[in-house]
């Protein structure tokens, strides 16, 4: 009995987009960072810290905007640390990134437990807003246009980021730095400044993504809230071949896999196989692995990725 009512399909897509968005935001940041040649494995830790600060400050002030802003600020701070380590001190990017991850993970967990203890605390979740007219289009309408505000922002942000990357002077400099920093340096591009800015953008996006996951989707904070999303975002960057739009598509694939398995869960529970739901939760991760293998042959990383730059 697999005739799916239109509303359910809409809901599936709606949830898919919502689940994809934190990935897409973090992924966008990482695209910029890696395009400049810096791999930031700490995205997961930054997302967690972003989620926590957003949660905490929204709870304190009751103002969601404050939450988002603090998340971006903490993202900038952690990004600055990562940039110092990897760009200026030339610490191995993988190792430095893991450090940021451990720090972000541990600190967010500790701070949450210490401040909130075992209480079950929630924050006012974002509310979905319907775009007049557009949300009435059958199927696509409620799926795309009855969403959280941040998602509307994403609709604009990612194409804008694509445009900046490929059609502006800054994007050109960024891409050159990630491919061949020596040539860019020769032509007067400040390699270090470009990389610092790219990493800071990436980390602030990661913080923002974490904040959205907490404030927009879940409404509370708990240990390891992001659950690997930061790393999946990095995987999506590979899958998307370092292109913002392709990365976004990848995030939607993952989001759909997640969404579909969630809906299937309901189905299976009703059909009397509650355990199968967890089996279904493996599917999104398998999808990521398969797509990584499929893309591997043709994927070409920015040539200077994770190679520190030294001027002779």
């Amino acid at each position: 009995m697999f005739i799916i009512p239109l509303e359910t399909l809409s809901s599936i897509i709606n949830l898919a987009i919502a689940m994809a968005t934190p990935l897409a935001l973090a992924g966008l940041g990482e695209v910029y960072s890696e395009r400049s040649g810096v791999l930031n494995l700490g995205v997961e830790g930054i997302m967690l810290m972003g989620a926590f600060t957003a949660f905490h400050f929204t709870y304190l002030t009751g103002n969601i905007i404050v939450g988002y802003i603090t998340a971006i600020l903490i993202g900038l701070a952690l990004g600055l640390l990562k940039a110092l380590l990897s760009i200026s001190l030339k610490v191995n990017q993988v190792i430095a990134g893991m450090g940021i991850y451990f720090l972000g993970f541990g600190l967010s967990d500790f701070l949450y437990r210490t401040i909130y203890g075992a209480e079950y605390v929630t924050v006012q979740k974002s509310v979905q807003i319907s775009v007049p007219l557009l949300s009435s289009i059958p199927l696509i309408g409620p799926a795309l246009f009855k969403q959280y505000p941040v998602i509307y922002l994403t609709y604009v942000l990612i194409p804008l980021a694509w445009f900046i990357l490929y059609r502006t002077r800054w994007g050109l400099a960024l891409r050159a730095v990630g491919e061949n920093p020596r040539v860019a340096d020769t032509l007067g591009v400040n390699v270090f400044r470009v990389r610092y800015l790219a990493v800071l953008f990436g980390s602030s996006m990661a913080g923002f993504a974490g904040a959205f996951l907490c404030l927009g989707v879940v409404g509370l904070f708990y240990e390891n809230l992001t659950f690997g999303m930061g790393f999946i975002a990095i995987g999506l960057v590979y899958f998307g071949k370092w292109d913002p739009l392709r990365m976004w598509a990848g995030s939607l694939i993952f989001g759909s896999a997640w969404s579909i398995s969630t809906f299937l869960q309901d189905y299976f529970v009703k059909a009397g196989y509650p355990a199968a739901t967890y089996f279904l939760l493996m599917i999104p991760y398998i999808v990521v692995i398969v797509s990584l293998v499929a893309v591997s042959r043709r994927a070409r990383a920015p040539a200077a990725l994770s190679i520190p730059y030294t001027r002779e």
Partner: protein
Amino acid sequence: MKKPIVSMRGIVKKFPGVVANDHIDLDVYEGEVLALLGENGAGKTTLMNILYGLYRADKGEIYVKGKKVHFKSPKDAIAHGIGMVHQQFMLVDELTVVENIILGLKEYGIVLNLKEAVKKIKKLAKEIGFKIDPWQKIWQLSAGEKQRVEILKALFRNIKVLILDEPTSVLTPQETRELFKTIRKLVVNNIAVIFISHKLHEVMEIADRIVVLRKGKVVGRLKREEANPQILAKLMVGREVFLEITRKPKKPGPVVLEVKGLKALSDKGILALKGISFRVRTGEIVGIAGVAGNGQKELAEVLYGLRKPLEGRIYLFGRDITDKNICERIKMGISLIPENRLGLGIVGDFSVAENLILERIDENLFSTNLPLLSKLNIKKINGETLLKYSKKLIDEFNIATPSPYAKARTLSGGNVQRLILARELGRKPRFVIAEEPTAGLDVSATEYVRKLLLEMREQGYSILLISGDLSEVLSLSDKVMVMYEGEIVGAFKPEEVTVDDVGLMMTGVKRMPEEAIKRIWD
């Protein structure tokens, strides 16, 4: 009297162990083609890198339009109207032609006005006389096209002096002709072109003035009318003083290595070996003369197994080893003394003793069997044999090191080479490929290596000697072959040919007939 647009005075540049530029003076005038002629290591590229701002001279001054300048980076040089096209193109492969050309420029807006840039590109290209598709990505272009992009890049920045470093080394003959047309058009537009090369016939064709460098010094300044290939070759290669080495004539033994029709690509995807065939016999040194970059490196890599050939076969002791991996070839008795000593030849962080058995670690002599684990080829390293063996080699080869356990990177240049020689020769390989074995070594180390090679020859080893030092090749080898652009253009016994002729072969002017070359290997 026209004033030069660029003047370099008293340029000195030293690198560890070598003086690359030894008090060089150079003048460049507008609207002329100045050729810088010399072998590899003569100092041409270093000098131009200094002019372009990539290196800083230890001593000396540069004047542009009469004013003294200090270049901190190519950006400054470009700002003063000096541009350079390197042998390794300074282009970003993944970006398009337009993007590469306008990278770093502010004139085309924050939102890139590519149409405007493309218009200018097309206009300039037409003026200079070639076509280019501005929307293609660099990796899709041929070498000739990439070169044109580099030239356009320079013109976009109002270059008055354009330096071309060995531009024809990656071009087909047809592309070379196109390039020369372009150069003439540039000159007509009053741009000075500095043409670095080691190829005599090209220099003779395109240059207005020629400056010859050898071992860091200027050894000749001529106008084109005054020059001819013989004079230039002699200047480039030098009046050779044959070394005091007595090579006893020997009758060579049976064939050890046979190579048939070897073709291979270089890292850039160009054909670096275009059909190499030769033989090496027991107790024989076959030397390869030639300016570096004519396929010698690729030949060594293919013979050893670091590079797969496109076509052709290699036979060692009669067995076809073309498809065998390095480990198997080593077991069969092949050895390589690499040119890249620090990067390839030793593991700096490991001890001298460990380096001395690097490829022999699996042998039963050095790893004793362990129960069970040996099935997985996991064996215990026999520390005593290792120590004994390394001490023996350190003694035999006179490696100066405080202890066998000292880290290999603490060794001086000459001792690193001794270590590599000790390691390779210590296992008595029957065929040795020696790549630039004396490059960068001091006099006594050089002497030592040369004596060693001759001794090995006495004992019946076979050696393929690749060296940019012509006198070395000519004095040590029983037979010499000259490589030029991936082909063997000459093969002879050193006694039978004049140095001048060799120089002409090395620079592509002269070529021996096929049969004469084939006969040498019999």
